[in-house]
C-alpha cells in the first residue's frame, strides 16, 4: 500500500468519525450509541479510551528503557514511542470528551477536586502526562527549527520530565484497573480480581513494547525504509517475558481464587476469555519465543497486531463486554461507535505521519528517504481552483474527496435517531380487540368474575355476555376489559360522549388514559369478601352468625345486614342514603357500588363539593392485586 492510499483511507475514516461527533454534539450521546442504563460503558469508553492507554504505554516504557536504563539499542524508536504516546493520549482526550454526557465539562476535574475518585486521579495523571509527552516531543520540534539554546535547557531537565512521566504512567495505567475494582458484582469473575491494577500495569509495559514495534514496522514499510529489526526484536523479547508473566499471574490468580471451574464452563464468557488469552498471551508469547520470528519483520508485524487486538479486547471486556452476561442485558455496539473510535484514531494516525514526514521521528526515515519513495504535499501555493481542479496530482483533492465522500456515505447510513434526535421506540400495541366477555359468578370464588368465554369452559359461565375491548395499554401483559358501550352510555350517548375520551388532546395520546377518570382499573372483586368473613367466623361453624335462621336457605336476602356488626361503616353525617330495604342485603359489588350508589350522588352534589371522605375513592384501599391473563392460548382463537 502506498502512503497516499493509507492517508486516503485515514481521511475517509476521519470524515465519518467527525460526522458522528457532530451529530453527537447536536443530539446527545444517546443518539449514536447502543448503550443502556445497565451497560453505560461500551466500545467507545472501552476501545476508544481505556484500550488506548496501554497502547500509549509505549511512551513511558521506551522512555524508561532509553533514558533511565540507558539501553541505547532502543534509542531509534524512542521519539516514535513518545509521539505514539502523544497521539494515543490525545485520542483518549478526544474520545473521552465526546463520550461523556456533557462534553464541554471535560475540563471540570481541573476545578472540582474529588480525591477519593479513581477517575479523578486518572484524569489528572493523563492531563499531566500529556504535558510531559508534549515536552518530550517538543525536544524534536525545537531541534528541527534549530532553537539550540532551548534544546540545551531542555536536555538538562529532560530526565526529570521522563521520571515524572514514568511515575504518572505507573499511576494511571494501574489506576485504570483500580477503576474496575468498583464493579465486583457486574464484572464476570474471570476478569474481576484485586490484582487488576497490577495486571493493567504490566500489560501496558508488554503491550507498549509491541505497539511501538508495530508502528515502527508499518511506518518504515510505508516509506520504503529498512525496518529497525534490532530494537524491534529486543522489544519482542521483553514483551514475550512480560506478557508471559502476565499470563501466568492471570491464570494463577484464577486458580488461587478457586474459579478454575469457570475456565471450562462452556459459556459465552469462557469463550471470550480464552479468545482474549489466546490473542493477548498465547499467540504472542508462543511466537515471540522463536528467535527467527522476532528478527523478521512480517512475523513481528502480525504478532504485534494480534497482541494489540488481544490486550484491547481485555480492556473492552473489563470496561463493559464481560459485564453483559451478569447484567442479563444485551449490547451490540452501534456502527457509529466503531466509526467514532476509528475516526479519532485515524486523525491521530494522520498527524503521526505528518510528524514522521517533517520531523526526525525515526532516524531511518529522513527527508531524502521520503522524497525518494513519496513526495508529501508541501503547502500548495496555487489558488483553490488550481489545487482542486487543475492539478491532477493534488493530494488535497484526493483527501478532500475522501472526507466528503465519507461524510456523505455515513450520513446515508446514519440511524434516524442520530439525524433527527432520539425518538421513542415504536412498540405498537396490538389493537384493542373486541371480545365477548361475561360477568359471572364462579363457584368457590368470592365476587363476580369477568371472563372471556372462549377461554373458559362455556358450561361454567352463567353470566350475561357482552362485547368489550381488551386493552393492554402499557404492554405488560395485563389486560383491562373495557366495556365501550357502557362508557358511551355513561358519558352521554352516541353523539356527545366521544369527546370526553378521544379528544382531550393530551400529548402523545389518541384516547385518554383510563386513569384520567379511574384512579385504578376495576378489579374482579366484591367489596364483601365472603371467604374472609368465613375465616373470621370460624369456617363452616360460623355460618349461623350471619345467616341467622338455620332452617332457611343461605341467601343474601336473609343474611344479617352489614351495619349490625360494622356500626361505624357509615360515618355520621354521611350523605349516602340507604333505603330501609337495602339494609338487609349484603354490600353491593364494588363496581355497582361506585357506579350506581356513588357516581350518581357525587355528580348531583358536584357543585356542593362536600365529600365526606376524600380517600374513599382510592381503589387501592381495598384492591390488592391486578388481574392477569397468564395463558396465551386463547389469543390464537380470537
Amino acid at each position, binding site marked *: 500500500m502506498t502512503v497516499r492510499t493509507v492517508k486516503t483511507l485515514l481521511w475517509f475514516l476521519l470524515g465519518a468519525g467527525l460526522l458522528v461527533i457532530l451529530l453527537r454534539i447536536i443530539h*446527545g*450521546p*444517546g443518539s449514536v450509541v447502543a*448503550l*443502556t*442504563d*445497565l451497560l453505560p*460503558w461500551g466500545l467507545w469508553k472501552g476501545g476508544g479510551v481505556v484500550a488506548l492507554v496501554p497502547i500509549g504505554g509505549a511512551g513511558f516504557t521506551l522512555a*524508561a528503557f532509553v*533514558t*533511565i*536504563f*540507558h*539501553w*541505547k*539499542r532502543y534509542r531509534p524508536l524512542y521519539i516514535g514511542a513518545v509521539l505514539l504516546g502523544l497521539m494515543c493520549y490525545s485520542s483518549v482526550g478526544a474520545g473521552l470528551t465526546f463520550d*461523556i*454526557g*456533557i462534553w464541554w*465539562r471535560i475540563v*471540570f*476535574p481541573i476545578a*472540582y*477536586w*474529588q480525591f*477519593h*475518585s*479513581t*477517575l479523578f486521579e486518572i*484524569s489528572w495523571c493523563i492531563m499531566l502526562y500529556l504535558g510531559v509527552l508534549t515536552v518530550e516531543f517538543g525536544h524534536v520540534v525545537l531541534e528541527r527549527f534549530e532553537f539550540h539554546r532551548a534544546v540545551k535547557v531542555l536536555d538538562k531537565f529532560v530526565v526529570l520530565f521522563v*521520571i515524572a512521566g*514514568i*511515575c504518572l504512567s*505507573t*499511576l494511571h495505567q*494501574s*489506576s485504570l484497573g*483500580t477503576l474496575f475494582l*468498583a464493579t465486583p*458484582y*457486574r464484572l464476570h469473575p474471570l476478569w474481576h480480581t484485586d490484582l487488576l491494577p497490577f495486571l493493567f500495569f504490566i500489560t501496558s509495559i508488554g503491550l507498549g513494547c509491541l505497539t511501538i514495534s508495530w508502528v515502527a514496522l508499518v511506518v518504515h514499510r510505508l516509506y520504503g525504509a529498512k525496518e529497525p529489526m534490532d530494537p524491534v526484536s*529486543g522489544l519482542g523479547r*521483553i514483551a514475550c517475558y512480560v506478557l508471559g508473566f502476565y499470563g501466568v499471574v492471570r491464570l494463577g490468580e484464577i486458580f488461587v481464587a478457586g474459579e478454575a471451574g469457570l475456565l471450562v464452563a462452556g459459556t459465552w464468557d469462557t469463550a471470550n476469555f480464552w479468545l482474549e488469552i489466546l490473542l493477548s498471551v498465547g499467540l504472542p508469547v508462543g511466537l515471540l519465543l522463536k528467535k527467527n520470528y522476532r528478527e523478521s519483520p512480517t512475523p513481528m508485524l502480525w504478532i504485534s497486531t494480534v497482541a494489540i487486538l488481544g490486550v484491547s479486547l481485555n480492556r473492552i471486556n473489563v470496561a463493559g463486554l464481560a*459485564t453483559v452476561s451478569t*447484567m*442479563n442485558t444485551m449490547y451490540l455496539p452501534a456502527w457509529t461507535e466503531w466509526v467514532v473510535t476509528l475516526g479519532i484514531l485515524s486523525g491521530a494516525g494522520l498527524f503521526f505521519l505528518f510528524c514522521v514526514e517533517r520531523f526526525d521521528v525515526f532516524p531511518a526515515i529522513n527527508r531524502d528517504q521520503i522524497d525518494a519513495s513519496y513526495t508529501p504535499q508541501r503547502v500548495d501555493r496555487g489558488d483553490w481552483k488550481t489545487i482542486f481542479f487543475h492539478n491532477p496530482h493534488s493530494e488535497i483533492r484526493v483527501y478532500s474527496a475522501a472526507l466528503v465522500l465519507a461524510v456523505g456515505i455515513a450520513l446515508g447510513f446514519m440511524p434516524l435517531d442520530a439525524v433527527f434526535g*432520539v425518538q*421513542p*421506540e415504536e*412498540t405498537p400495541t396490538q389493537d384493542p380487540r373486541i371480545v365477548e366477555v361475561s360477568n359471572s359468578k364462579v363457584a368457590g370464588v368470592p365476587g363476580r368474575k369477568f371472563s372471556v368465554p372462549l377461554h373458559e369452559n362455556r358450561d361454567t359461565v352463567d353470566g350475561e355476555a357482552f362485547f368489550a375491548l381488551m386493552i393492554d395499554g*402499557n404492554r*405488560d401483559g395485563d389486560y383491562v376489559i373495557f366495556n365501550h358501550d357502557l362508557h358511551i352510555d355513561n358519558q352521554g350517548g352516541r353523539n356527545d360522549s366521544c369527546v370526553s375520551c378521544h379528544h382531550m388532546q393530551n400529548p*402523545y395520546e389518541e384516547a385518554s388514559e383510563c386513569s384520567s377518570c379511574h384512579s*385504578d382499573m376495576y378489579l374482579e372483586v366484591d367489596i364483601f369478601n365472603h371467604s374472609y368473613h368465613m375465616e373470621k367466623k370460624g369456617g363452616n361453624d360460623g355460618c349461623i352468625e350471619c345467616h341467622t335462621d338455620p332452617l332457611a336457605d343461605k341467601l343474601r336476602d336473609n343474611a344479617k345486614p352489614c351495619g349490625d356488626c360494622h356500626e361505624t361503616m357509615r360515618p355520621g353525617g354521611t350523605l349516602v342514603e340507604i333505603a330501609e330495604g337495602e339494609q338487609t342485603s349484603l354490600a353491593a359489588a364494588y363496581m355497582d357500588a361506585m357506579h350506581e350508589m356513588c357516581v350518581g350522588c357525587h355528580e348531583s352534589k358536584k357543585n356542593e363539593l362536600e365529600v365526606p371522605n376524600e380517600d374513599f375513592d*382510592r*381503589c*387501592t*384501599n381495598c384492591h390488592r*392485586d*391486578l388481574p392477569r391473563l397468564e395463558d396465551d392460548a386463547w389469543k390464537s382463537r380470537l
Partner: protein
Amino acid sequence: MTQTNFSILTDVTKCIGCDECVEACQEVNKLPPERPWRWLNSITDLSSARWTTVVRLENDQGDRFMRRQCRHCLEPACVEACIVGALQKTPEGPIIYDRDICIGCRYCMIACPFEIPRYSWEDTVPYVQKCDFCYERVLKEGKKPACVEACPTEATIFGTREELLAEAHRRLAAEPGKYVQRIWGEREVGGTSVLYVSDVDLNLTELDEPLTDETPMPQRTFKILHHMPSVFVEMAVVMGGIYWVIERREKLAREGAEQAGTEAEGPPDGDGSGTDDGPNDSEQAKQS
C-alpha cells in the same frame, strides 16, 4: 455516623403493587412522561422518568411487590466514584446530585452495587437520574418523601434509621412465622438507608445473585488508591536512583577510557553496544 439518618422502611408483605408511590414521585420531581425508549427492557424499569418502581416478585404463595429506589447507602459507591463530586452524601443521609457540575462520565452507574442511577439518554444534554429522597422537601418543608406520603397501605414508612431498624426488628419478632428473619439493607455494602422486611427472599439488585456482601464499596477502590502518592514517590526514587547509578558508572567508564587512552581494548559494559540485551544491563546496574 450522623445523629439523624433519614430512612425508609418498606414492608413487602404490605405492598399491594398499586404504583401510587411511582406516580407521586414522578409528580413531585416533575419527571418527564414515560416513553418506550430503545434502552429499556420494560417501560416499568427504573429510568430517567421513573426514580422508583415496583417490581413484581413471582412467588408460589402469591405474587409480592418490592419497591426499587436509590438505597442511599451509608458508605456510597457512587459518591466515592464521582470524578467531580457531583454526587454528595448529605449529613442527614440522602445522597443528592448536583447537575451543575456532573460531566456525564457515568462511572456512578457502573459503580452502584444496586444498578440504581439511570441516564437521560434521550436528551442532548443528559444527566444522571436517581431518587434524592425528596431531600429539599423533607428538610425544608418538613414533609415525608412523596412516595411514603402516597402509600395507601403504609407499606413504606419514613423515619430515622434507628427508629426504623427498631420497628423492623419489632415486626420480625412480633410475627416470626410470617417474616424472613432478615432486614435487607441493614448490613449490605455497609448498610443502606432504605430497609426492607419481607416474607419472601429479596434480591436488591438486577443481577441473578442477590447481594449479601457486607464490604462497603468505597473500600474496594480506596484501599488501592490511597497508596498512589507513595507509589509515585517510590517510583520516582527508584527511577532516579537507577538513572544516577548508570549515569555515574558510564561517566567513570568514560573517564577510565580517556585515561587509558590508546590502550583501551574495547567498549566497557553498559556503553550501549548494540548487541547487548536490555535486561542484562539493568541487572548489572543494580549490582553496581
